């Protein structure tokens, strides 16, 4: 769901770890345990690998030791802030198959964009690129869903302005929910850039607020493990 998915979509060239979002289900956890066992994956750092902890929004971190995977880090999550539940993510996933018969199930670009709306500075340029790539790949005969996605998530003034000019009625419909579309429609580019920056800062603040109790819990767990 993370950097590796961005590699598939073209928004990154390499990722040093693999992030998985998994179905929070007893049978699935047993399968996950089995897979982690085959990778000789040992948990590193807090929190412990526990379904209830995952359901509270934590990530569990592992490092692999099996041949060919030595040192590889794996992060597992079951839910993320502002992101739909697993069944919806799964129904919208992108599947890529290779010539060896392996299948790679990725968060759709719109879901990946939601997952990337974090407090981390490095995620925001990736969001810009993901939306730009999605626009380039779908702009010939876009669906209503694609237009909606671009209008809600485009993060550069130039691209957003271009989309608003192309789809003014859709932009006017969404504008009450994303007020800066009015600025995009009016072509005030400097103001639009400032409002996009403010929108990003607001979202980062929401993510910090979401993580505050989780970080306190991690600190408690860390002290408990010492």
């Amino acid at each position, binding site marked *: 769901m993370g950097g590796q998915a961005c590699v598939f979509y*073209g928004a990154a*060239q*390499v*990722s040093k*770890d693999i992030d998985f979002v998994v179905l929070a289900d007893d049978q699935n956890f047993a399968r996950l345990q089995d897979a982690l066992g085959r990778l000789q994956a040992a948990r590193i750092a807090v929190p412990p690998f526990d379904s209830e902890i995952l359901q509270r929004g934590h*990530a569990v971190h592992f490092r692999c030791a099996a041949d060919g995977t030595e040192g590889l880090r794996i992060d597992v999550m079951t839910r993320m802030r502002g992101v739909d539940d697993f069944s919806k993510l799964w129904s919208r996933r992108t599947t890529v198959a290779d010539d060896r018969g392996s299948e*790679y199930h990725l968060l759709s670009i719109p879901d990946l964009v939601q997952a990337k709306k974090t407090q981390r*500075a490095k995620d925001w340029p990736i969001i810009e690129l993901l939306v730009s*790539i999605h626009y380039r790949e779908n702009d010939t005969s876009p669906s209503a869903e694609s237009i909606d996605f671009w209008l809600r998530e485009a993060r550069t003034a130039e691209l957003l302005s271009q989309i608003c000019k192309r789809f003014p009625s859709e932009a006017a419909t969404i504008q009450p929910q994303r007020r800066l579309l009015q600025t995009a429609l009016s072509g005030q580019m400097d103001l639009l850039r400032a409002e996009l920056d403010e929108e990003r800062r607001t979202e980062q603040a929401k993510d910090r607020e979401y993580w505050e109790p989780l970080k306190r819990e991690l600190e408690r767990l860390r002290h408990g493990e010492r």
Partner: protein
Amino acid sequence: MQFDDLPDEWKEWISLTPLERLRRSEQIFADYLAMGGSLDPDPDPTSPFDFPELWSAGASHGRAGLRVLRRGAGEQGH
């Protein structure tokens, strides 16, 4: 960022198929590791996952693959 504004290297990257990107990424990653690159996360004070426990033991600044050869005058030695 719009596609036209990207550097040529990125335009070429995006024009590949997903599987071509995966294969090239695997090669880049293999080259990175062959040069002693670390699998540890890069320090990121803006991340809620910025734990020293995620870094390999004994690594400089927690990052395996890097060794301190010389410390700057303003840095504290360990």
